[in-house]
């Protein structure tokens, strides 16, 4: 069905960005608008999610400027895109609130809020669009905004990281443009649904699907680059270190997932339709697998490399942000792994489980990794460093923050009943159901590496003896709140003297060194991880719906089909057909000339 609700989240985010730019002279109003805009975005997404659920087809379409697809640009919201949108909405709201306290005043006034919401615009557009060139545009929006946000601190590290980020991603953009140009030339269309329809029946449209495989492989590079899959992960560690914590949270939690979404959408919904026999040494597949016979092994190799090498790299990082960055590389491997298994699985049930596993894992990683980056940011805010050698003993001075971090970390490991457990469970289950012992072995090895780096981080940063910086922060927290309970035992007067001691008693009087708002943001995500785990049923239902939607190419095409799009309102839908389109076009050709 067509509905204007589809474009609502995008307009909300865009409007917020513009308002944030216009109110630069009134910083207080600007910050309020930014947070309110993020809240409105959540509402917009919620309305859209509900509308999609209520729709009998589960797919809502919006034709921009009212031009019919495939000629104009079509936005389409289905369970897959709305699941990712919901993740984006939650993370971006939390991170927006966090930003107000975390980012320097001048930075906020200059451009932070506008750029932040433009990044959300890019994410939203990419998740909703049904047009590959339009997808390119939203990727550019995401890239440009995140480039500035990575460089935001403007010191030498941030500038260097942002330059690398921008250059690598611009290379990706060039590749994307090349691939999209090629796809247009070979299939004659840019609309995803139309492309799927044409690929499904290539002879009827005079298409040779053979070159499309290579072109789609070229396009895959861009999505994997966005997602940070090996060997396209090179921008990840430095960029995550350089960007402010809330930006990193959105980059790791949401922007990465756009890459995952694009892989699912294009390769399982669109390109999977093409009947093509693939053969390479070691790879072979009949026409029923199509392109996926090629992408399955490719994704498997990359997922394995990411999960193992990323996990290994995370173990001995000198700083928390680096550790979490490597962990992101590893976790994206876990997301790609079930997709790889699903790609080569013949049974549709296994394919559904595989995609659902990737989506649940995406949601888990989106929430958990954002939480961890925000927690580390809160610690940095108080202590001024994220180097493991400067941290230590955080549980003693920031117990709630530590608890939230622990929940996020355990969710990464996959400890029940957190969301991460079910994510890992589904990844394992995909491997078991598909009879893929190698995939199971990779998942197990990756999971063990996760335990290794998570426990190491916990031991070094949260247990152990508090370092001098932690003591200094504790002293500052105490003197900063002279009327607090800290004074109760009267022992604080000489605290400055023994701040470097190891007795620990001077710390006992500090309730928390971390900023309460920052802690609150972190905690809210922890609560969500617990709640979505204990009440996993709705998330699982949403993920299987999304997986089913991703695999139902026919329904996707039907929802956008140009033949029925024109008179959908008149006759309330219909099956349409290639015939109608051909006739319509022939008629048009006659008219136009």
């Amino acid at each position: 069905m067509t509905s204007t609700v589809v474009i609502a989240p995008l307009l909300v985010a865009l409007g917020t960005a513009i308002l944030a730019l216009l109110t630069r002279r009134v910083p207080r109003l600007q910050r309020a608008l930014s947070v309110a805009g993020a809240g409105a975005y959540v509402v917009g997404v919620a309305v859209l999610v509900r509308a999609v659920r209520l729709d009998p087809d589960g797919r809502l379409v919006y034709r921009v400027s009212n031009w019919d697809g495939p000629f104009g640009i079509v936005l389409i919201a289905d369970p897959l895109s709305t699941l990712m949108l919901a993740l984006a909405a939650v993370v971006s709201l939390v991170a927006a609130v966090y930003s107000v306290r975390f980012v320097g005043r001048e930075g906020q006034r200059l451009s932070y809020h506008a750029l932040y919401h433009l990044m959300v615009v890019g994410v939203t557009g990419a998740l909703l669009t049904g047009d590959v060139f339009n997808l390119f545009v939203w990727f550019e929006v995401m890239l440009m905004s995140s480039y500035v946000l990575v460089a935001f601190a403007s010191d030498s590290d941030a500038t260097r990281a942002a330059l690398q980020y921008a250059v690598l991603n611009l290379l990706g953009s060039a590749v994307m443009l090349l691939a999209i140009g090629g796809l247009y030339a070979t299939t004659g269309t840019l609309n995803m649904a139309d492309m799927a329809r044409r690929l499904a029946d290539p002879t009827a449209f005079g298409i040779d699907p053979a070159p499309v495989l290579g072109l789609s492989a070229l396009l895959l590079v861009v999505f994997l680059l966005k997602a940070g899959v090996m060997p396209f992960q090179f921008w990840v560690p430095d960029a995550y270190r350089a960007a402010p914590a809330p930006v990193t949270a959105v980059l790791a939690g949401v922007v990465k997932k756009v890459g995952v979404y694009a892989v699912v959408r294009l390769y399982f919904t669109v390109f999977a339709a093409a009947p093509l026999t693939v053969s390479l040494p070691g790879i072979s597949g009949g026409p029923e697998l199509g392109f996926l016979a090629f992408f399955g092994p490719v994704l498997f190799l990359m997922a394995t490399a990411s999960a193992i090498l990323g996990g290994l790299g995370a173990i001995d990082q000198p700083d928390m942000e680096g550790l979490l960055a490597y962990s992101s590389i590893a976790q994206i491997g876990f997301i790609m792994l079930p997709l790889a298994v699903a790609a080569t699985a013949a049974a549709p049930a296994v394919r559904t489980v595989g995609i659902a596993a990737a989506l649940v894992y995406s949601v888990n990683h989106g929430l958990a990794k954002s939480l961890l980056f925000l927690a580390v940011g809160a610690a940095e805010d108080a202590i001024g460093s994220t180097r493991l050698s400067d941290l230590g003993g955080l549980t003693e001075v920031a117990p709630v923050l530590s608890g939230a971090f622990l929940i996020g970390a355990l969710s990464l490991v996959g400890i029940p009943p957190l969301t991460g457990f079910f994510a890992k469970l589904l990844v394992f289950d995909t491997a078991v159901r598909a009879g893929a012992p190698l995939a199971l072995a990779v998942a197990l090895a990756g999971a063990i590496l996760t335990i290794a780096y998570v426990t190491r981080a916990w031991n070094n940063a949260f247990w152990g003896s508090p370092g001098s910086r932690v003591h200094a922060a504790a002293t500052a927290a105490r003197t900063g709140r002279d009327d607090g309970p800290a004074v109760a035992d009267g022992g604080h007067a000489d605290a400055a003297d023994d701040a470097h001691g190891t007795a620990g008693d001077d710390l006992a009087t500090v309730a928390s060194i971390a900023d309460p708002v920052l802690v609150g943001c972190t905690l809210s995500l922890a609560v969500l991880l617990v709640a979505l785990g204990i009440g996993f049923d709705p998330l699982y239902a949403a993920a299987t719906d999304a997986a089913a939607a991703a695999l139902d190419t026919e329904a996707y095409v039907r929802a956008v089909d140009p033949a029925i799009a024109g008179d959908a309102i008149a006759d309330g839908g219909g099956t349409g057909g290639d015939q109608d389109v051909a006739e319509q076009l022939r008629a048009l050709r006659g008219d136009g000339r």
Partner: protein
Amino acid sequence: MQPDAAVLVAALALPFVAVPFVPALFRVVGQRVAFFAAAVAAGSFGLLATQYGAHGAVQLPWIPSLGVSLTLYVDGLALLIGFLASGVGVLVFTYSYGYMAHEHGHVKYYATLLAFMGSMLGVAFAADLLALFVFWELTSVTSFLLIGHHQREDASQYAARKSMLITVAGGLFMLAGFLVLAFASGDTAAGRTFVLIGTENSLIANGEAVREALRAAGLFVPALALVAVGAITKSAQAPFHVWLPNAMEAPTPVSAFLHSATMVKAGVYLVGRFRPLFAPELPSVPEWTLLLATLGLVSMTITAILAVGATDIKELLAYSTASHLGLIIAGYGLAGPAAVELGAETGAFHIFNHAVFKATLFLVAGIIAHEAHTRKLEELGGLAGDLPIVAGITGIAALGMAGVPPFNGFWSKELLFETTYFVAVEHGGLYWLYPAIAVFGSVFTFLYSIRFLMLFFGDRPSGLADDIHRPPLAMLAPPALLAAIALATGIVPQLGIDAVVQSAFEASLPVAAEAHSLTLSIPKLFSFTPYLGMSLLTVGLGAVAYPFYGRLHAGVRWARAVDYTSPNWYYDGLTEGANGVSRRLAVGLHGGAFRTYVAPLLLGTAVLALAGYAAAGSISVDGVGAVPPVPLIVVLGVAVVGAGAVARAPSHIAGVLTLSVLGFMVAIVFILANAPDLALTQLVIETLVLVLFLLVLDRLPAYYGEIRSRARGIADAALASLVGFTVFATVLVATSASPEEPIFQYFLARAGVPAEHGPFFSDFGGGSNVVNVILVDFRAFDTLGEIAVVAMAALSVLTLVGMRAQTETEMAERPESDSADDPAATPATDGGRGPPPASADDPAPSDGTDGSGGVDR
């Protein structure tokens, strides 16, 4: 009697519900919060007691779409573990009041311990495999937190991480095993299920079909092995026993509770629970026995020997725990015609006996450490004079552990001997190794048990403090109560059997089997049997060997210092090796040199695309061999020369100028292709870029990086050629295609003004330039995005300039804030982070880690 769902849920939920109250209560009542926790444990115990004799399952929905339920199953085995968890819980909480009086972190301690108790009850009663796994992993996590209770100590952190790595990793293998079982059950008539026992379509109820499905898929042994990995990591069986001695870093009540009586019992519980599924009644010895009985007996022997090498009383008890868990696993592992019932009896009875005497001994160890301020075996002795009651308690428990009649451990060990004997008689041959190993291992058990008992007798070492006080009542009563139970069970074993053991072992029998009543009593000892002979042989050999304990101790210490046979050596090698690999990997992958980032990206792209073209088979390509018109050849020739010149350009300026030659040639190609508007655009862009470049280049350093080695130059050239070829191939295949009905036809048709139209129309573009109409109408949405990009480019300049100014001011104002670490603080920080000092009076059992304690966290 059917179990009552509400009561069961209440018993399980009570500890979890109590957790949030701990911090608040601690503020009010202080350390007496221990009694609150004990009351909670007693509440759970009481609730479970009402279910005594119940048998059956209750099903609660949890995640219906995933087929996961919160099925709880009550039978003798579940109740046995449940009573242990809550009953020992009461005693341990009470004991903690005395033990923890001078420790830190009470809130954390009691809250975690309560959560652990709830999780353990969950393990006991959950019949759905995934629900079981939830609680299983929660016990691992709470164990991690409790082992790391002394969180500033490196040894605690090392121990906590080690236990987490081993038990959680093992748990993941087990999870994979569960999924294999569920997968196999999907092929049976009963359908896919995670429910192990208690319902009509549960795995055990349809055991025959599930086993057949597993065997048909070749998954029987893998499933068994995966589940077994979970059990033996949790129950600290060789070679995964290494985490348990380190876990003694935890406060002693935790060791008594988690690491002897309950958590480590989860593994053996699982073995007992799965026995009916994997070890049905067969005429032959099942894989189950070959795997688990062998592993249990070997592990029992190895860890008993290691216990003799212990220097610390808790370390001794830790190895001993691993050894006794091996005995239980061996008991459950022995199946087949001769042992199906006896084995189950051994396992169930020893779970009970071991929990009772080992918890007692740990609590005693806590008293000794608390009062004598040392845990070193060599520094202790002759304590009976100071602690007479404790000596009596220890006597009962230690003799039970040694297997001396008529103490409680004797009875279950006797059952093991009996089982191994009958298996050997039935199957002969190599199976005689089972009784032989059982006796051999038990000799060491006898030895270390007596060694522990001798802490109270003999001479007082000179270094021992004179002022050894009697423990407070809160610390004395719990072990005394346990010792009383042990004594009663020893003298009248039928008491324990009738109370819980009979119904517990029945749970581990094959579904169809009829259980007979197990009867044991002292008069039975007066009729000689071969297995009674084995017991006597054990005690006799032990008594003969005890005078040589010192030499044996030294021998074991020498043997376990051998690197290649020590699991600790492998663990430390792997974890520390991983650190080294991690560092090298990070530097190797992300060393910071930009070219090393770009090259893999380009290579990956080219390989992926070309592989795609290759995999698709033949692609038709048009125009190969056709000769292009002369002007085009000239223009392209100039472009190629320009491209070559770019690569050789000696400076930025020359590079940009030659690059623009390329750009202008492209513009001419557009002209030749009848696209004047594109050509104009290209010319404008090319000119602008050239001018901008020249303006900016003035500010950049005027040199290029040098290609240092010839090999690198060749590699770069090859990569560049590959990328060029990829793009060439892509353009070639793209331009060769001629799809029907491309969408641009629609744009051509609709861009203009319709032939007949009113003042207002919306179905045509109404423009004269189709490109413009596409940009501002058909695809205006793209243009919106691009405008945003351009706006952000402007914003980025503003931001970078503004923020740089901001950062510079801040740096100028606070020079110290961004400088390196405060030099005064650095030594302190490093001191807390390095390896722990190997001082002699370190109470930690650092020997238990083969000298590696605390190096890697």
